[in-house]
């Protein structure tokens, strides 16, 4: 018992260190700004007061009950910065307790939780203010109550999820049904929860539709890099994939029930290649299989000891390498103080109706600090696909008239040229050529990180 508590304390400490490390190191490097673009969007929507409509971008937003919680500035700063970390730690504790209920050995639980903590997706979900922090926490909380036969509390946790993110509600139902199918133990309780959750999802969809949010924008699908070893933003390590495959083989039981469950999991894996939400959910599931596989590999009698030691060492190094690559990436990510200065300069300089051309990945940050509409951010590209096509034209066209027509159409006055966007424009060549050769663009601000160009109409 004492050992178990000791392990749990160590795991919680490890989680705390990993979640705090990126922002702490950034602060040491004189950069107090949050790392994640989505967090800026969430905070901006929260701060603007109108929670069903994004007045800057001009489209409706999904209903998020977190936005109903109105706090003063200092309290809201705690919400945005501290609460996600606390939710991460709470998720770890709850996951530990949930796994304990499954009669899994202590070492396997520790391995599963440890892999979960060092996974880049865990760090992504629980640093800064993202809906995933709450969604994952509520999922694990619901599972905890389910395992302890507190059905009403479990229902309360699960039914909240669609009112934070409707698509997460769908995914939760799908996974609950898969769990119900594969495991007869909590069959009735899971059934009740699934029905309640389903009703909650329907209600959420109705409310969202009522307030003008199209359910078509609920989920976005695009082919993404899923390996953090090679730079994925929301991904897994290659070693975890191998361990998961081994774990799936180890936990295979003959029978159609297992077969169907595995087929369903395979479908989820495939969908996770195209959707961030599913990938985040799947991450926590594959860690279970990976944990089993890891313990199996350490415990089994290898015929060649040296291979055992080297393989285990390789696996551990590979997993930590992936975590290190990801953590380093977010430590070095925008925005930096210089970047924010440039955006504040644009805010002072510009009119509220003017738009800014920038890299879509930094769009939310640009909108947050400049309080101006970015031509493309992570959500507009799904609401308005035409803009995506037009960005390509603007970036590659060497015809000044054609480019000007688009710039005027969208009232684009400023171009934020950071390293990433410049690299993109260099590949396309068109806009950079026009900036160099025409007298329609003027550099109005420059620092180490970013250069701001202004489009002069006449």
């Amino acid at each position, binding site marked *: 018992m004492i050992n178990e508590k000791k392990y749990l304390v160590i795991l919680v400490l490890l989680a705390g260190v990993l979640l705090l490390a990126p922002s702490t190191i950034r602060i040491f490097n004189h950069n107090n700004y949050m790392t994640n673009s989505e967090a800026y969007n969430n905070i901006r929507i929260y701060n603007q007061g109108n929670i069903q409509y994004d007045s800057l971008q001009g489209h409706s937003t999904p209903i998020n009950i977190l936005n109903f919680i109105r706090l003063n500035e200092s309290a809201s700063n705690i919400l945005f910065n501290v609460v996600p970390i606390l939710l991460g730690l709470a998720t770890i504790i709850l996951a530990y307790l949930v796994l304990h209920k499954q009669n899994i050995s202590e070492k396997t639980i520790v391995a599963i939780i440890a892999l979960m903590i060092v996974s880049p997706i865990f760090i992504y979900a629980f640093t800064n203010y993202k809906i995933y922090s709450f969604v994952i926490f509520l999922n694990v909380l619901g599972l905890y109550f389910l395992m302890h036969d507190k059905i009403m509390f479990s229902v309360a946790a699960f039914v909240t999820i669609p009112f934070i993110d409707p698509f997460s509600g769908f995914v939760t139902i799908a996974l609950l049904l898969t769990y119900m199918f594969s495991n007869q133990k909590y069959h009735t309780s899971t059934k009740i929860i699934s029905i309640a959750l389903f009703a909650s999802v329907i209600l959420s969809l109705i409310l969202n539709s009522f307030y003008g949010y199209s359910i078509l924008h609920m989920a976005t699908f695009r082919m993404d890099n899923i390996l953090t070893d090679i730079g994925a933003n929301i991904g897994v390590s290659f070693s975890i994939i191998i361990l998961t495959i081994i774990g799936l083989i180890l936990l295979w039981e003959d029978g159609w029930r297992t077969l169907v469950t595995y087929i369903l999991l395979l479908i989820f894996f495939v969908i996770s290649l195209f959707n961030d939400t599913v990938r985040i959910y799947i991450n926590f599931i594959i860690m279970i299989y990976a944990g089993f596989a890891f313990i199996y590999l350490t415990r089994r009698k290898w015929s*060649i000891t040296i*291979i055992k030691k080297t393989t285990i060492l*390789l696996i551990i190094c590979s997993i930590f390498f992936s975590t290190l690559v990801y953590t380093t990436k977010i430590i070095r990510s925008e925005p930096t103080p210089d970047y924010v200065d440039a955006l504040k300069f644009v805010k002072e300089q510009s009119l509220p109706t003017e738009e800014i051309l920038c890299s879509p990945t930094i769009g939310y940050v640009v909108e947050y600090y400049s309080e101006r509409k970015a031509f493309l951010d992570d959500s507009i590209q799904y609401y308005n696909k035409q803009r995506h096509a037009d960005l390509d034209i603007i970036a590659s066209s060497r015809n000044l008239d054609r480019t000007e027509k688009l710039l005027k159409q969208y009232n684009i006055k400023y171009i934020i040229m950071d390293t990433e966007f410049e690299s993109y424009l260099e590949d396309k060549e068109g806009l950079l050529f026009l900036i160099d050769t025409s007298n329609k663009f003027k550099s109005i601000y420059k620092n180490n990180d970013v250069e701001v160009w202004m489009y002069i109409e006449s």
Partner: protein
Amino acid sequence: MKLESLKNAKEKPIIWLLAIFIIVLALRLYIAFDTPLFNHDAYFNLRQVEHIRETGTPLYKDPLSYEGKTQLFAPLSQYILAAFSLIMPIDIAGKIIPNVIAALIIFIVYYLSFKITKNYKISLMTSFMSGFIPIYFIDINRVSINYLAVLLMFTIIYCMLKLNERKYVDYALILMFMLVLTTPMAFVLVIGLLLYLLLLKLENFAVEMKELEIILFFTFLVFWVNLLIYKNAFLMHGLLVIWQNIPIQILSNFFGNIGFIQVLGVISIVPIVLGVYAFYAAFHLERSKEVLILISLGLSAFILLWFKLLDLISGLIILSVTLVILTAYTLKRIDVFIEKSKIHKYDKVIYISILILFLLTIIPSIISVVDSPKLGPLSTPTVGDVELLKWASVNIQQNAVIMSSLDEGDMVAYYAKRKNVMDTNFLLTPRIDQRLNDINEVYTTTFETNAIGILNKYNAKYLLVTSETLQSYGITNISYLKDDKCFEIEYIRDGTYLYKTDCKIE
């Protein structure tokens, strides 16, 4: 006594093997030394070898390639060459050592064939064949890492077949580390070994724990080491790193379609027919674990070639050696058949006929490969090119940029020791297609301003014009170079020109 000892010696396969090795090596060195120079893309490796010899480390931060960039590669092959270059000149080491490594394949082929057939005559026959596979002659003057990679791959497979002996476990581990530090082609072997596990399962063979453990270890090792080495390339190019950021224009040269006739030409009909039969026999007639592992490697190479995930030459080399070894299995089956049949008196005639057929088919193919104008080992720069570049290394500014064709970029960096605009190391270079288009434009445009604009873009003051470049563009001269206001001949040697320009487009 002497005659008897000679007769005894003739019976020992090692003597025959050494004889085959010497013949193969002699032929290879004869072709290699037919020219004092190397193929164009050998010069990158030679520069690395020089740098390792001088400093002990590879030249990862290359100040000359693409006017300065980071190189990414696994350096073991270059280290081996550098070690030998301490006892002989670099260009001699570059000729001899890769060809010695290439010739060593006959020993591995012999031992693998013997493991399958337990027949030393058949094994000798296949080892002889392996020394004369036409495609194996293409990299004679390329200081190629393919030879070391293929040798290591098949040696690992041999060790995998002898894992019951403890020492082979250690050998396999050491060789795996070496392979991973030599080339990313280790992926081919990983996929082959994973296919082998699958085939074992399908064929109801028992999977030995040692095999499973070693394959698991190797899988992790290959993926992790390559992620470490090529991390920046993955970050920049994503999964397109598999195609090495090769410009689209020339991608088909590296990952071309494999036509059956071409395959016949570069591998020879005998190993293809007998090897494919072995594939059939291993699944339908007589199951054999040893054959399965080779089939798996062959399948891996074939699948990767088919999906254009493996460059043509490397893939064909692996495939050809695999087919030659599988030939031993077929020959064994033929031998067993002949023994039981009425024609057992003619077994020697049959084997000699097969050998003659093999020689008849490979000799024209070898000649064709060796004489190949673009890819063959004799397709080297001219002495004039080299002497001009050596002159440039002494007489032009240290930080000058020399524009040359793509193929000549490595040579420019090696002999002239000056920056080039482009060479055959494409990784980590942005807008690679544009760069190649620019170079093509310089050599083909009739407008001086276009050419000067491009030269200015890359800060190139010098333009190398060789007869080979003109030939490759299908032109006899570059018209704007007649204007000596902007372009003056800095040096000329045996039809190779170095032009200098000081003009700028404002």
